[in-house]
């Protein structure tokens, strides 16, 4: 097949060109931080370690298991908080489905929602002290509201004829909620999960910066006080990469669980 063999190098070239800018930036960084700074301004080298030094720190911290321990602590907090935040799904379904539930709860939600999770940190420390519960509470807030808002919207957007069809086929109110409204709202619920995971992940680091003795946020802050800039940057990069991987993972799960919805979006 001449077509396929002709395509092979061009996709490889595409792949290369996609990473070209990043490659050049890393190279410039390496030259500036590794060769220019030590000769010109040696007192600044601790503030900007070259990529190779960060790579070295990564190997060291992965080898000692330190990085993975902190990463696992952070992930565990995110997942536990997510499990609690799933309460937003039944609440959102109720608010999207019953007008009275929306009328009663919406004012409360609308006031609480614009408060950034980070603004809850001082109060949560007073309430829960410093530790896992407080961290998880901050992440919970980050996940809860996007998930709630998207669930409500998903329920409100359910095709009215689907509900009518189920109703005339004999489905009870409960069966309609479970068998029609929930699955029909699932694509939007997944959108809420994706946004929530992102917000939660960001809030997590802030929470750990202030009130934790483990986790990626703690790792960064701890390294700062020891002036280990390479570890600070390594911790930041880990947060970025893991956030991206989580997002890709959720998208992959959504694709697996909701093949019909992706096809409908096309």
């Amino acid at each position, binding site marked *: 097949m001449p077509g396929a063999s002709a395509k092979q190098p061009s996709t490889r070239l595409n792949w290369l060109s996609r990473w070209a800018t990043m490659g050049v930036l890393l190279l410039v960084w390496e030259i500036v931080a590794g060769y220019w700074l030590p000769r010109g301004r040696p007192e600044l080298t601790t503030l900007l370690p070259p990529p190779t030094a960060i790579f070295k720190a990564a190997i060291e911290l992965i080898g000692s298991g330190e990085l993975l321990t902190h990463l696992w602590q952070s992930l565990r907090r995110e997942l536990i908080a997510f499990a609690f935040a799933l309460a937003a799904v039944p609440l959102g379904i109720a608010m999207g489905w019953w007008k009275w539930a929306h009328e009663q709860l919406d004012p409360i939600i609308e006031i609480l929602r614009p408060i950034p999770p980070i603004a809850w940190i001082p109060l949560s420390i007073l309430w829960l002290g410093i530790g896992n519960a407080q961290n998880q509470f901050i992440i919970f807030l980050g996940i809860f509201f996007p998930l709630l808002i998207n669930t409500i919207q998903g329920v409100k957007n359910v*095709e009215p*004829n*689907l509900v*009518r*069809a*189920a*109703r*005339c*086929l*004999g*489905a*009870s109110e409960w*069966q309609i909620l479970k*068998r*029609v409204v929930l*699955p*029909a709202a*699932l694509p939007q619920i997944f959108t809420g999960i994706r946004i929530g995971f992102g917000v939660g992940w960001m809030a997590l680091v802030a929470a750990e910066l202030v009130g934790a003795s483990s986790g990626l946020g703690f790792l960064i802050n701890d390294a700062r006080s020891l002036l280990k800039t390479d570890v600070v940057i390594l911790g930041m990069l880990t947060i970025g990469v893991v956030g991206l991987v989580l997002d890709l993972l959720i998208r992959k799960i959504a694709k697996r669980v*909701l*093949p*019909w*919805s992706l*096809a*409908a979006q096309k």
Partner: protein
Amino acid sequence: MARLVVDGVHKIYPALQAGQDDVIALRDVNFVVEDHEFCCLLGHSGCGKTTLLNIMAGFESTTGGQITLDGTPVGPPHWTRTMVFQDYALFPWLTVERNIGFGLEVKGVPETERARIVAEHVKLVGLAGFETRLPHQLSGGMKQRVAIARALAVDPQVALLDEPFAALDAQNRGLLQDELVRISLATKKTMVLITHSIEEAIKLSDRIVVMTKRPGTVKANIVVDIPRPRSEDDPRVIALKKELRALIADEREVELA
């Protein structure tokens, strides 16, 4: 038995703003759909035929008068009166089989019995081999076959069809109309179908109820006893077409006046 009696039905939508008039959608509508009869409601858009069908299904209520099924006034939606929608309204996350079996599932019909009924209806609408497909993998005509099978699988007394073929291309529409004639003869179900197509009404109906526009009232109630299949060249078909066209054309003049 499934005898549907529309008895002096009124439907008035109250004005949305002060100073506007109430909208009279239906005024004193009376007709009877006999057991096993295929009835078409024929009229222009805006004649209240969809409102009437929604009342039959229980999605809306009457302002006056009532609709009875075998003497009992129809209430909220119930599986004895199922609906086929113009936009199919299939559950996109369920396979063909499970869409058709939905009504049986919520009714709690045991699985083996359900499988038997579903298989029977898959065959009835000619979808054998497509049981495990999802709706988005089907053409419009096939989707509507699934919707018809789904509406019939619960063994309703009346099937209500809301312009079921309006979204299909001409070729598929013709094909599905023929299929529906076959299905209605095979199942002997009482059916009420909404259409604005004279040809469709003639092809399908035992009875054609012609409706006027705003307010919707019954203009003519015609029993069609031409044997099926009905050829377009049949002089009785041609005469009926002429009659219906005249009835409908009158309506257009009302609109222009």
